[in-house]
């Protein structure tokens, strides 16, 4: 059973679920997030009837710099009117009847959060943010599904990310997610395409018909009338005579559309410059920055659903290494075996005089299939594996390979946990390449990561 208690007057209530040993804090005011140590509770219930208050509380939690707080399971009272508009900020709603269910959800989220470990070497904010997002998705078992939100600059919000990144800067979310999808953490599926301002990427655009000559919006449009019997054609106002229509050319009364006359088209008149035209120029005014965009200048963004890939799940659980800021230029280059040997020797000497540790990795692919390939194909595989290894290495690290089946790398100044993690990631992805790319399930990969400090020179 659970009980609702209030330890002191004017403090948040607590929901205790003794059998499970859970304690959930019930927040009613945004100040409570600062005054009370939310991190020590298993979850948060937001109990307010004011939408603005609820939004602020949720933002304070999700945007908290402490990941223990920002990833906390948060549920919102289902009695709050219009909560669906902010659903990207919380994990679900609750009502008295649903407490038991929600307690299970909180337990499950916390259980999965515990599976994730602390970050390793994340100095870049974006990478750190994505790491949190991966953990968020993994702990909730959800994908990042865009939710319509009129306050967002792109018209959509994403769970977790939109609570951290300001709404006016929402385009950054798309760029981040796309960047990390390319790396392989997310599988992207486009659900919509939006157009954004050329200047600020804002998606709130006011499409307007303007004069192609002076760009004025002060336009008047009028139907043209074609009188069949005399072929006279003019704007409708020319034919209007008080309560009827009469042809100014032949003075005949126009009675019946389709019989006496028709309206073959319409013409715009610009009230500013008197220009007459049929095709108004459509322009898109950005509501955010006020830039008047030509249609061809608008940027196009795809709004997608981002689902965690196995690689993403792995990164959520075991952490990411900061390797993606400049994916092309920051990769270490593959060097010759001789040069590798020379650097290795120097590094061993250096390590003897310092307290730091560097690691040497070695991967051997025992694949009959690779051995059976021709020289060109072997070269392609070699490049592919080198690329995979370099993805997880710092640009200062070194890679070499003697053949398509044997690779070596040096990880400078890393602790053991990180070195092992990188080795594991490399092995997993090379296995994936062989399984999925070459359809070779008979291979065997030998990975060895050893400390250079204790090694003898082997080259």
């Amino acid at each position, binding site marked *: 059973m659970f009980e609702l208690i209030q330890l002191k007057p004017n403090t948040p209530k607590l929901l205790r679920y003794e059998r499970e040993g859970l304690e959930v804090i019930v927040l009613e005011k945004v100040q409570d997030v600062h005054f009370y140590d939310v991190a020590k509770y298993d979850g948060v219930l937001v109990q307010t009837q004011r939408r603005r208050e609820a939004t602020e509380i949720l933002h304070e939690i999700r945007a908290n710099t402490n990941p223990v707080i920002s990833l906390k399971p948060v549920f919102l009272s289902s009695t709050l009117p219009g909560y669906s508009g902010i659903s990207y900020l919380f994990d679900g709603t609750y009502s008295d009847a649903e407490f038991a269910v929600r307690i299970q959800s909180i337990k499950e989220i916390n259980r999965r959060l515990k599976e994730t470990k602390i970050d390793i070497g994340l100095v870049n904010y974006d990478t750190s943010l994505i790491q949190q997002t991966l953990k968020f998705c993994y702990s909730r078992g959800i994908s990042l599904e865009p939710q319509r939100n009129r306050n967002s600059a792109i018209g959509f919000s994403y769970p977790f990310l939109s609570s951290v990144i300001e709404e006016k800067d929402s385009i950054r979310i798309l760029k981040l997610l796309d960047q990390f999808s390319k790396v392989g953490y997310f599988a992207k599926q486009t659900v919509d395409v939006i157009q954004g301002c050329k200047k600020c990427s804002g998606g709130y655009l006011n499409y307007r018909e303007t004069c192609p000559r002076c760009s004025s919006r002060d336009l008047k449009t009028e139907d043209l009338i074609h009188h*069949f019997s*005399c*072929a006279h054609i003019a704007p409708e106002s020319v034919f209007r005579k008080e309560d009827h229509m009469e042809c100014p*050319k*032949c003075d005949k009364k126009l009675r019946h559309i*389709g019989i*006496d006359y028709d309206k*073959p088209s319409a013409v715009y008149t610009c009230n500013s410059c008197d220009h007459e035209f049929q095709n108004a120029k459509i322009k898109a005014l950005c509501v955010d920055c006020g830039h008047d965009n030509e249609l061809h200048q608008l940027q196009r963004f795809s709004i997608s659903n981002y689902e965690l890939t196995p690689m993403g799940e792995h990164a959520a659980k075991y952490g990411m290494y900061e390797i993606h800021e400049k994916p092309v230029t920051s990769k270490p280059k593959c060097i010759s075996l001789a040069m590798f040997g020379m650097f290795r020797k120097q590094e061993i000497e250096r390590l003897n005089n310092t307290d730091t540790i560097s690691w040497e990795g070695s991967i051997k692919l025992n694949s009959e299939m690779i051995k059976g390939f021709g020289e060109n194909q072997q070269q392609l595989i070699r490049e592919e594996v080198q690329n995979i290894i370099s993805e997880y290495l710092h640009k200062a690290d070194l890679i070499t390979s003697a053949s398509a089946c044997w690779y070596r790398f040096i990880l400078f100044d890393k602790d053991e946990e990180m070195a092992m993690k990188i080795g594991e990631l490399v092995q997993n992805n090379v296995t994936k390449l062989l399984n999925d790319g070459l359809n070779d399930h008979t291979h065997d990969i030998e990975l060895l990561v050893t400390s250079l400090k204790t090694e003898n020179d082997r080259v």
Partner: protein
Amino acid sequence: MTVYEQLIPEYINYWFEVGWPKFIRVFWFFVLFEFTRYILLDHLIYLVKWIQKPGTSKGYEWAKRKLFIENPFVSIIIPGKNEGENLYKLTKSLAEQTYTNFELIIVDDGSDDNTPLIGRNLEKRGLIDLFLRNQVRGGKASAANLALQYAKGEYIVHLDADCSFDMDAIEQVLIPFFLDTRIGAVGGNVKVRNAEESLCARLQSIEYLKTVFVGRIITSHLGIYKIISGAFGAFRRDVLDQVGGWDIGPGLDGDITIKIRKSGYKIYFQSKAICLTSVPKTFKRLTKQRLRWDKSIVRFRVRKHRDVYLPNANFRWSNFFALFENVFYNIVLDLTWIIYMIDVFMNYNSQLSFIIPMNFTLYVAMGYIQFIAVLLFTERRKEEVKLWKYIPLMTIYTGLYLRLVRTTAYYKEFFFKRSYEDVWNPTKSSKMARRFGF
């Protein structure tokens, strides 16, 4: 028999033998109508123009100067359907003009091809000033009237989209307005561009030179010029407003010319304003075109504008003769020719072997003499002289083929008013035009 007599074919010697009275009796149709109109008159006018040339040249130079001093704004309007592919070439041709103070208005009359795309694109690129489109086809007259509605020029130049122009064509077609303030409209000189493409086109090229070029110089000089080609004509804006723009065709170009004449304005043919057009390459298409044109003669010049023949307050001899000449030389003489043929076959049946070749010879000779008149007037002598070898075929082309087409058209229009059924116009318009006698 002398050597001289031996060189001349027998059928010609025969006519020397029988003497002039019988020659005139047998070939009365040629002598009375064809020779006098197309040989005597043409050359007489040429002589007059040649004599007057120094004087007119002075007036012409003054008018030209006045045009460029006043520099009036001109609206060039081009109504048409499915003319997209011609538009770019047309804009290029107009971009070369010596007279530049004009706007270009294209009206797309319900095209069902890519004309709207092309037109909008050219408008966006600034090659067209205004591109108007009727989503629903209304016919050429309504398209021209729509352009007129939005035209801002003092003068309106009406063109066909498939034409190209000498670089001074617009200048030349405007100059006559400054020669005489009573001129309400000026017709341009339409010549054939695709003469090389087929025999049919070559024969039309000769026909255009004789009837459009020389023919209109003569009628214009006599003050009875009655048709400004839709392909190239210039109008005073106020005059067009006065006559209410174009009425429903086919033959709206001839109709509006008569309307302007009836309003008391002069019509002028400017032979120096050269426009080149593409004519039908096959006889099948030519027949279709001519049936349409010829029906309009009956519809407009006999039926709609019959008041010009009646002594009323608005009666003018010049209008009377303009239409009478046209109706007489086309409709009346068409019927007379049938009477003539009956006369020959009934009265001179035994001498047909002398009559037919002689008749052919006369028409060929007349063709060459007319061609000389063309060469005397033309500015493209070198190119056009090459057509000389096709002149003999013109006897069959104009004497038989066109006469047959014409007669068929007159018959259909006189008795069945078939012009109102022509698909050239939308049915909705033709139906109402027929009902109200337009």
